[in-house]
């Protein structure tokens, strides 16, 4: 457990010192969303209707964009190899990396999303539902993405392959989350959606780190 905290500390310190890379997914997220009023229509009713889907797709792609770097630098400099010799299970270290990835990409996306939601004329209740859905959904994206990142880290051009591997797994999350935001915007009860997202999150916390650490071992044994 102490090693889990050590990974978290190390990852956050590296992220802090590398803050330019850190901002990339966030800037991508904002740019993509702000292009929609220009490209589709500036009218309120249209924008508020597409807002949940647009924001969620942008968040999903922003996460996917940052996923490739999860294990990449540790693989390149040999840290990943040394991690497999650790006195505590590799699963814990991988989970630590995933949690820190979520803290530096998922959480900022969720925090920023209500502002962008209001820009797309989503009402206040919808923006709140969006915030909650991203808070529950982005950790799932980080967890599932880690599986793809672990399997492709040994390849030179793994970026697109991650998308192909992982996007099908992201689809249920996308459907549930956008339905939740739409329900929120229409003042319909969305507890059911939240419970479903929570269930997927719980399942992925349990299984994704195990799958990702197995993927890391496969990628290293080449």
């Amino acid at each position, binding site marked *: 457990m102490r090693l889990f905290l050590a990974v978290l500390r190390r990852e956050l*310190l*590296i992220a802090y010192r590398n803050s330019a890379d850190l901002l990339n997914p966030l800037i991508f997220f904002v740019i993509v969303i702000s292009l929609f009023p220009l490209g589709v229509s500036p009218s309120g009713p249209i924008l508020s209707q597409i807002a949940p889907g647009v924001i969620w797709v942008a968040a999903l792609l922003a996460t996917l964009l940052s996923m490739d770097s999860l294990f990449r630098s540790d693989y390149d*400099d*040999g840290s990943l*190899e040394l991690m497999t010799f*650790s*006195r505590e299970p590799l699963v814990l270290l991988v989970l630590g990396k995933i949690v820190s990835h979520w803290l530096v990409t998922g959480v900022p996306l969720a925090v920023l999303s209500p502002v962008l939601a209001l820009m797309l004329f989503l009402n206040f209740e919808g923006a709140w539902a969006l915030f909650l859905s991203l808070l529950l959904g982005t950790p799932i994206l980080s967890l599932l993405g880690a599986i793809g990142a672990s399997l492709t880290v040994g390849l030179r051009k793994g970026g697109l392959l991650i998308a192909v591997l992982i996007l099908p797994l992201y689809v249920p999350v996308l459907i549930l989350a956008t339905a939740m935001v739409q329900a929120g915007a229409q003042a319909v009860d969305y507890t059911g959606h939240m419970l479903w997202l929570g269930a997927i999150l719980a399942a992925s916390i349990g299984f994704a780190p195990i799958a990702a650490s197995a993927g890391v071992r496969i990628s290293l*044994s080449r």
Partner: protein
Amino acid sequence: MLNVNHLSCERDYRLLFEDLSFTVNEGEVLLVEGGNGAGKTTLLRILCGLYSEYQGDVDWRLSETPVYLGHKPGVKDLLSARENLTWLTGLYQSDITPAQITAALWQVGLKGFEEVLCGAMSEGQRKRVNLALLYLLDSLAWVLDEPLSAIDVEGVANLESCMDAHLARGGSLILTSHLPLSLSRPIKKLRLGN
């Protein structure tokens, strides 16, 4: 300490070695020799469980994991020498104090570089941060892949005395090196290829 029986490995349709058997006991050195591409690194990775496409038995009699230091130093550019070493030793043991880390960095000749980011260091200095692990860890088995590359003459002498101390306390050492190595104990040699 290590028993290897009938080890064979084929890689990319090429037989690297076949029916390899050897033992390494306490206080012994095994130098794996061979040309480039002969399978030295693959053999060391098999011994450490990093590569699993082989036939045969690898049997360590050890309570702790062997220390494996490969070609890549495992040192992060954005962390200082001290932060890197604290993290790396933490992977193996929880009882290393900051004072010990400072002492180890001094021993590998990095006095004054403790708080310098490793990204600002030379290749050899990064390698030295990695080698400082050897001064800190209790493990009795060392598996070192080209530990002398990028290290200067003085550093090599330092490392040799560190290896001697390790062997004297009953440790064993398996390594590859293209550079000549002078240790106080006799060096067992294993030649790969042909």
